[in-house]
């Protein structure tokens, strides 16, 4: 009896064993857990030959949960906060190892992370801050150039605002309105609406692994990465020094940071939208200078508009306005250069450029008038030809009448 029972028990065990047995080459994990890498689609770690146990530890050949997920075999279920960074950094900071696997990847992520706001808090035990997997994913990790990666240029704004929003960050000491402001900004419009990867998003100014708000004086360097001319001019200008002394951040004081809006000539001066009003009184020496500068640029834009209108008229009348149109571009460029030159806070510099632009507008306007003059010349020619033809017609009519009176 016992022998039969044990035979049956043995057979049953064999059956159970058979179902639960791992397939050759696959981790036993997938026997109980649905393969999360399979579900995620592509994954760079799997493609590099790594498996579940390479990150989670444990025994992949064992079938029973206790043996497979044994902490003594190094099993880590769900690493917490700082532990995630150490886990990932275990490979990704190992220069010798990474050089063999993918020499193009940087290896300073962990070091940077430790200096970042995310990293500091994570290592203090804060469970809510971003760790590696918050931005790169855990299963289904893709290269950041892959558009499906949450850390890619197309998705990074979405990823950062996954935490940096009013709900998740309620009660935090930092603002929670970054996404709303950024979306309204010119950078946001270019990146989100027009999908221009050249426009800056969160990590372009804050860094990625070492994410932190730029220090007050680092702002110029951040903005100046693209807006180099303005940054250079500002640093060398009188205002550059004043701002440093007063401890006021450059660039963002007049242009904001997340909500960098489209600039306009109205920002110059102490008027309604004037940025200078923050420190200057209407009527003071600088304000008077800005009034003159405003006049200069308004006059230039008006004369460029008028000249363009003349050229359009001439073209519609059939004249060839190719060369004047080309020449006029230098005038529009002068307007752009003048607006950049505002950052030098030097009225003579500014007016010099305005004078150049005005000269261009004047010359092109003369050319446009010459073209329109050509049109007038045609009208004169027409008057002569019409006169001739009408006279001829009248004489013919008289002759016809004369012949009739036979």
């Amino acid at each position: 009896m016992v022998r039969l029972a044990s035979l049956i028990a043995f057979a049953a065990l064999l059956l159970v064993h058979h179902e639960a047995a791992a397939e050759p080459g696959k981790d036993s994990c997938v026997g109980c857990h649905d393969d999360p890498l399979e579900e995620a689609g592509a994954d760079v770690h799997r493609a590099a030959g790594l498996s579940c146990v390479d990150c989670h530890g444990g025994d992949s050949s064992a079938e029973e949960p206790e043996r497979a997920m044994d902490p003594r075999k190094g099993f880590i279920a769900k690493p917490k906060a700082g532990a995630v960074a150490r886990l990932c950094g275990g490979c990704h900071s190992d220069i010798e190892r990474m050089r063999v696997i993918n020499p193009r990847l940087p290896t300073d992520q962990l070091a940077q992370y430790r200096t970042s706001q995310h990293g500091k808090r994570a290592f203090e035990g804060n469970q809510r801050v971003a760790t590696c997997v918050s931005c790169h994913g855990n299963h289904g990790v893709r290269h950041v150039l892959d558009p499906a990666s949450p850390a890619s240029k197309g998705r990074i704004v979405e990823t950062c605002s996954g935490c940096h929003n009013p709900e998740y960050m309620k009660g935090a000491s930092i603002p929670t309105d970054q996404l709303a402001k950024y979306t309204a900004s010119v950078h946001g419009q270019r990146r989100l609406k027009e999908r221009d990867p050249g426009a800056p998003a969160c990590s372009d100014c804050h860094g990625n692994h070492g994410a932190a708000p730029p220090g007050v004086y680092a702002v110029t360097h951040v903005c100046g990465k693209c807006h180099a001319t303005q940054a250079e001019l500002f640093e060398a200008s009188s205002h550059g020094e004043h701002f440093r002394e007063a401890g006021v951040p450059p660039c963002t004081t007049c242009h904001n940071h997340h909500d960098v809006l489209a600039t306009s000539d109205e920002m110059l001066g102490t008027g309604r939208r004037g940025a200078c009003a923050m420190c200057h009184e209407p009527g003071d020496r600088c304000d008077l200078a800005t009034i003159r500068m405003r006049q200069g640029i308004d006059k230039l834009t008006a004369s460029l508009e008028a000249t363009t209108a003349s050229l359009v008229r001439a073209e519609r009348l059939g004249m060839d306005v190719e060369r004047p149109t080309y020449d006029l571009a230098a005038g529009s460029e002068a307007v752009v250069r003048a607006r950049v030159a505002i950052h030098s806070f030097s009225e003579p510099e500014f007016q010099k450029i305005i004078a150049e632009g005005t000269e261009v507008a004047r010359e092109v306007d003369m050319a446009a008038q010459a073209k329109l003059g050509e049109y007038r010349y045609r009208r004169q020619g027409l008057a002569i030809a019409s006169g001739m033809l009408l006279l001829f017609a009248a004489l013919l009519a008289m002759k016809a009448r004369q012949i009739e009176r036979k």
Partner: protein
Amino acid sequence: MFWEAEFLFHSGQEVRAMEVGVPGRRAFLDRLLGLSSVGTLLAIVYPVLHFVFPRSRPKGRARGAVLAGHASELPPGSGHVFPLGTQPAILVHTPDGQWRAFSARCTHLSCTVRYNQEMGLLHCPCHDGRFDLTGKNVGGPPPRPLPEHSVVLKGDEVYVAESEVG
């Protein structure tokens, strides 16, 4: 057709000469008519002749190409901005002796790019955009490369085609 009409008209006149009165006024009208018809003919022939006989073509406009500059004035490692139609274009004599031409309108916000000898690149002063000497955008905000135009040398004259390559 007109001389025929005049021809037959005069022969018809001979028949009616006796029937119409005041020969003086008739002759005056005929004279005026003759002058007027010559004048009208001239007013037609003058523009037609000027139209048909071409003036000498303004220099520097070969078929679909524009004279961008002279090779002797552009040593290797230099660039020259010139008008191509209504837009600026830049002719580059690269340090290794190639001649290339591109639209000089920066693909970011349309400022005019310049050749920067130090960098050996095309540089846009507005937002520090950079393009290498194949036109590819390699730095700063520009999102796309500069369109290229083909270059043809005729002796010392360097011509750039108006149409883009590719």
